[in-house]
């Protein structure tokens, strides 16, 4: 395998996820080069060839132009495998590159096996193993699935420039407004998931959080439904937290949620489904309806 790793850069900074791509290549003992849109002031620390497109001329978001640059780098590198992170940037770019290369794309790889690539299916309740049937392959890696390589060394930079016109216009970034709480600082977090059933039941999660002396949070569906404000969302698109105690209430454990809380010191999950993926990260799984369990636990704690 000769891999081209597509590093990530946003708002003027190299993203740490780039080291997960390097970790992946090292784990496979694969020969690799890197590509990134970025800046000479923010180079990844790695002893490898780096094809660099200057962000000030090609922009942070311009998929058709970035695709051309990646194709140019892949060609120069003689790469047969183009590797992205399965992120908002990776899942946007990877299919474009795959199509241009007549290559299969394997999305959200969690492991490489002797036969092929292992992927989650059905909300991580199942795993699929697939292999590429094309000469070149594009893969996207699930965030956190591969151990990040330690930074070290300096890349040999070759600058790429391209001037293809894009068919999209980038209008800048918007950061979510700071809310009333910084969950990243909370030592105890009690989070509500779909299993709470209806908006009124969020109160019993708040009550439990209060009884434990912590903050309350929520999984994505609860925030999307408008039951809990966005600044309390735990997961990759919300906050990544690592409290001393995380209580997952009626949360099945979508990958995006697990990635946001699995580093918590102690995880207590309450769920009616004991096969739910939250089981993979929980220390204790209570098989119960949260609507009965939470008020009972709160009463006992306050008693």
């Amino acid at each position, binding site marked *: 395998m000769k891999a081209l790793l597509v590093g990530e850069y946003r708002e003027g900074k190299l993203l740490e996820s780039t080291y997960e791509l390097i970790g992946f290549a090292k784990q496979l003992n694969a020969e690799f080069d890197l590509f990134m849109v970025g800046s000479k002031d923010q180079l990844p620390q790695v002893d490898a060839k780096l094809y660099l497109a200057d962000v000030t001329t090609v922009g942070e978001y311009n998929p058709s132009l970035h695709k051309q640059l990646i194709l140019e780098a892949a060609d120069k590198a003689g790469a047969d495998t183009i590797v992205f992170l399965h992120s908002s940037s990776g*899942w946007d770019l990877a299919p474009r590159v795959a199509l*241009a290369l007549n290559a299969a794309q394997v999305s959200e790889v969690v492991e490489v096996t002797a036969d092929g690539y292992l992927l989650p299916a059905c909300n991580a309740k199942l795993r699929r193993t697939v292999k590429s049937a094309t000469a070149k392959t594009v893969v996207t890696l699930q965030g956190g699935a591969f151990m990040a390589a330690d930074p070290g060394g300096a890349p040999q930079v070759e600058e790429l420039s391209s001037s293809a016109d894009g068919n999209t*216009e*980038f209008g800048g970034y918007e950061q979510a407004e700071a809310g009333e709480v910084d969950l990243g600082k909370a030592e105890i977090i009690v989070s509500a998931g779909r299993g709470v059933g209806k908006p009124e039941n969020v109160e019993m999660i708040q009550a439990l959080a209060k009884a434990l002396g912590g903050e309350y949070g929520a999984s994505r569906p609860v925030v999307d439904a408008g039951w809990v404000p966005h600044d309390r969302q735990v997961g990759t698109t919300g906050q990544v937290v690592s409290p001393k105690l995380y209580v997952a209430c009626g949360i099945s454990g979508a990958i995006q949620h697990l990635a946001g809380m699995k580093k918590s010191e102690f995880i207590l999950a309450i769920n009616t489904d004991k096969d739910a993926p939250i*089981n993979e990260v929980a220390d204790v799984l209570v098989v119960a309806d949260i609507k009965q369990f939470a008020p009972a636990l709160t009463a006992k*704690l306050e008693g």
Partner: protein
Amino acid sequence: MNILVCIKQVPDMESRFKIAASGTWFEESDLAWRINEYDEFAVEQAVQLKEQLGDSDLTVLTIGPARVKEALKKSLAMGCDRALHVVDDAAHEKDPFQIASTIAAFAKEKSFDVIFTGMQSQDRGSGQVGVLVGELLNIPALTTAVEFACEDGAVTVRRELEGGLKAVVKAQTPALVTCQLGLNTPRYPTLPNIMKAKKKELLEVPVNDLLNEESRLTALSLTYPEKKGSALILEGEISDLVDKVIGILKEKTAVLAK
């Protein structure tokens, strides 16, 4: 304006899945089926766009066996004007490139101004089909939309990135948009609209009329995840569970000591 929304029918994710005898897919009997959650947001956005513009025509498309008609009927009841069922009893064996090629083969003759898809499916989650359709049709593809607007022949979306960050992106139509959860609030079909939907056009086309491409991926196996979890599982009466949990929290964490 001519609008297309592409949807998929998937099993309810709360289901208990059994691996099929083929070893590469799950047993489809005994499952409840519904519209892929991401696609419900796509249908809602397409209907809202049609309502905003007035003089528009909205087609909903899906690929699959006979059961997928239910998903089309629901979409018609939500406000789509017509439906296309690409009949394929082996749709689950197609890879994202083949699915996208099928949609693009249908769409290229129809000059749609805006095409909506979900950003991914809940069962396979490749996140590829929408972008591939855009690339095959050579139109801009804007992914992961959590806000959408269409004005003066251009679409503007807010893309959801990581950590609460959004990116504002604009493109001239024709354009394709993939929809993230939370983009809008999908409506429930009302009874009168369900009745009206029964009179709407629902055409069938065999997949082989549209698909001319080989699969680029080989499915080897479908398995249950290895149980990495070492979670202690507690079952029983609520009051006993509460006592056990308090005991464990006292023993294993410092949070109750204060």
